[in-house]
């Protein structure tokens, strides 16, 4: 009996601190935000009192505004589109890279992995500012691109402060999050399966498309989630590298809280964003299970 309660105590000692942390710093603010989305904005920003004249002031006004004014839906869809493009380009770039790392020898592999995570050693904002310099009008890249354009008779284009700059930086920032889970998956692949496919008559493309790629899907989905969800809510990159019309949903939320000071509407946008991200991730997971047959078969592929 004593041993049993000891065990229970031990369990609480282990899960207690992280649980408390999540309750205080994640669940409570999320609830406060959910509540705020139903409240009325204050006259000078923030929130108006919850209790007014003995009545509780909760309404759906901010939700109504989101669903009636199509500009927000448009920005929202644009954000989803940018996040999708970012995920796609990250996948296209990360797959060959992860394959290369997984296939290289032990010594090279560690070095290559180090290079993948090296950007994390410098500040996120500094790296975005670095792109300002790289893409700037007087930088070599812009001169080269515009030189080629002038040669074919096209007007010069600005690289900085454009959707192009936003997208290229989104891909740059999120690439490691795609490479790492893909590498972790590809590294465990059994070469015998690819050999068997070749022996059974599959050419290089068929071996990739029928064997390697389906078996790497758990890694692809993990990487896609790690890229798509943060890319959906990002605001710093469009702020620094984009034009005003490149504003994404993250920028609008930031604007509602810091500039317009309409907290209820900012909360509505945040909640819609969270729900949408969860829904998309859930849908992707459901599709993934369908395409993999049974979930455990994918698990075995990693073993």
């Amino acid at each position, binding site marked *: 009996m004593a041993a049993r309660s000891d065990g229970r105590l031990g369990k609480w000692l282990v899960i207690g601190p992280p649980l408390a942390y999540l309750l205080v710093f994640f669940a409570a603010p999320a609830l406060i935000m959910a509540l705020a989305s139903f409240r009325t904005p204050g006259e000078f920003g923030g929130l108006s009192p919850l209790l007014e004249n003995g009545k509780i002031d909760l309404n759906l006004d901010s939700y109504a505004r989101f669903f009636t004014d199509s500009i927000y839906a448009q920005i929202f869809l644009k954000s989803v589109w940018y996040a999708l493009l970012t995920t796609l380009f990250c996948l296209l770039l990360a797959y060959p890279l992860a394959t290369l790392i997984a296939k290289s020898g032990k010594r090279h592999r560690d070095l290559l992995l180090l290079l993948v995570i090296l950007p994390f050693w410098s500040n996120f904002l500094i790296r975005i500012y670095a792109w300002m310099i790289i893409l700037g009008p007087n930088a070599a890249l812009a001169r080269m691109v515009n030189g080629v354009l002038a040669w074919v008779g096209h007007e010069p284009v600005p690289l900085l402060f454009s959707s192009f700059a936003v997208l290229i930086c989104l891909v740059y920032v999120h690439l490691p999050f795609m490479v790492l889970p893909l590498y972790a998956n590809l590294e465990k692949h*059994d070469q*015998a*399966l690819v*050999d*068997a*496919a*070749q*022996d*059974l*008559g*599959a*050419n290089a493309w*068929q071996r990739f498309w*029928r*064997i390697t790629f*389906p*078996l790497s899907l758990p890694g692809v989905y993990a990487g896609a989630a790690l890229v798509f969800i943060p890319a959906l809510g990002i605001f710093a990159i469009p702020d620094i590298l984009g034009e005003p019309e490149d504003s994404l949903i993250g920028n609008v939320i930031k604007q509602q809280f810091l500039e317009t000071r309409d907290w209820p509407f900012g909360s509505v946008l945040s909640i819609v964003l969270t729900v949408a991200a969860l829904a998309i991730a859930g849908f992707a997971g459901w599709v993934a299970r369908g395409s*993999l*047959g*049974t979930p*455990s*078969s*994918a698990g*075995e*592929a990693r073993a």
Partner: protein
Amino acid sequence: MTCAETGAAGFFGERIASSAVITLGASDNASVTNKNPLLIVDPFQNKEGCLIRAQAPTSLSNRRHEMRIAFEGATLVLLQSGDLQREVGSAVALLEIQNVSRRFGDFTAVDQVSIAIEAGEFFTLLGPSGCGKTTLLRMIAGFDLPDGGRILLTGEDLADRPPEQRPVRTVFQSYALFPHMTVEGNIAFPLQMAKTPAAEIPGKVEEALADVRLLGFGKRYPHELSGGQKQRVAIGRALVTHPTMLLLDEPLAALDAKLREEMQIELINLQKEVGITFVYVTHDQTEALALSHRIAVMNKGRVEQVDQPSKLYNFPSTRFVADFIGTCNLLDGVVIAAESGTVTIEVEGLGPVRATTMLRTAAGARATIALRPEKIRIEPTAADAVCENRFQGTITDFLYLGDVTVYRVSTPSSNKLEALLANSNAGRTEFFESRNQVTMSWPADAGHFLDS
């Protein structure tokens, strides 16, 4: 379906469907039943020609019959071995390995190996680990290329063909089933790669499932199967496209003893049924003896001997083969007398031993006699021993194994011999104990003479 029976001459020019059942019962007792007679003469052009060896039942004679039948297009032609030489040129063998070498740095994995494997054979590459057998198999499959020599399949050099373009299939030791596909998906895969019309695939998959006795398992995933079932899926997947040759890399190594024996019998029957040439790699000599028509014993990258199982066992040509196949007493000595067919060798620590041989030798030459433990008789006294070679000894150890007992007998000059006595021997009443004085004896033709 056409069914042709007996009377070899009747085959000439007879038209026959490609999936006919052929029974050849010729006057000299040769008989072949082949459900799937598609050993293709020219696999690269997909002509439906085939070569079938007619083999006499082993109970009647050990002699190979040279008579062959061959499909050419849809017309069946009977060829005597001489005709075959003319018809197909000198390349009678399905697979010819000519002076093949493979080096990894300083290590020579395969050293000047030459083997010819004929259509319809169950051929085994046998040897200890590191002898080069798997490297050789990988070179046949195309996963590795020889540094020297050539590999010819039906007369064509395979050097420029990647694995996916070779009409051979491999059954991998780890089975290598695709975990994200069902059993059906796995078996359909090579058909899809070969661009088989989609409508024909389900039928062929069913047929393959029936061949490996897995009907009803088509919808399962590999992780839902036992080891033996996975093995059968791997074999069914490899056979479904009717390859010219099946390469098996220690396919039974991962199974437990009981299942292994069951699978051995199944493999023999399957090979007989489909008539496809099997090239089998194993380090297990009992497995090789049980399964194969012929065995190539390999050691340190070289082929020591290529022969039928019974020849390998009874007439090993090298010390290594004698020692590796079963257990063997190797008696080293010097030839002291050599008459026609019989030699006498002075064996160190034992004395003069007589053996029969066809080999020419002369007095003074060093030689070895390979003597199987079961050929030695043990009697309590010298008076009971009747055979030519007789030696006194003391039993030092014995292992009672149920069906047989293995005795270690030490001679006065402490030369140890191993003898095996069947416990079921009719009239055997005496069991020997350690430290018993006994007389060992064996006839001159029991020992096999090895020239060293």
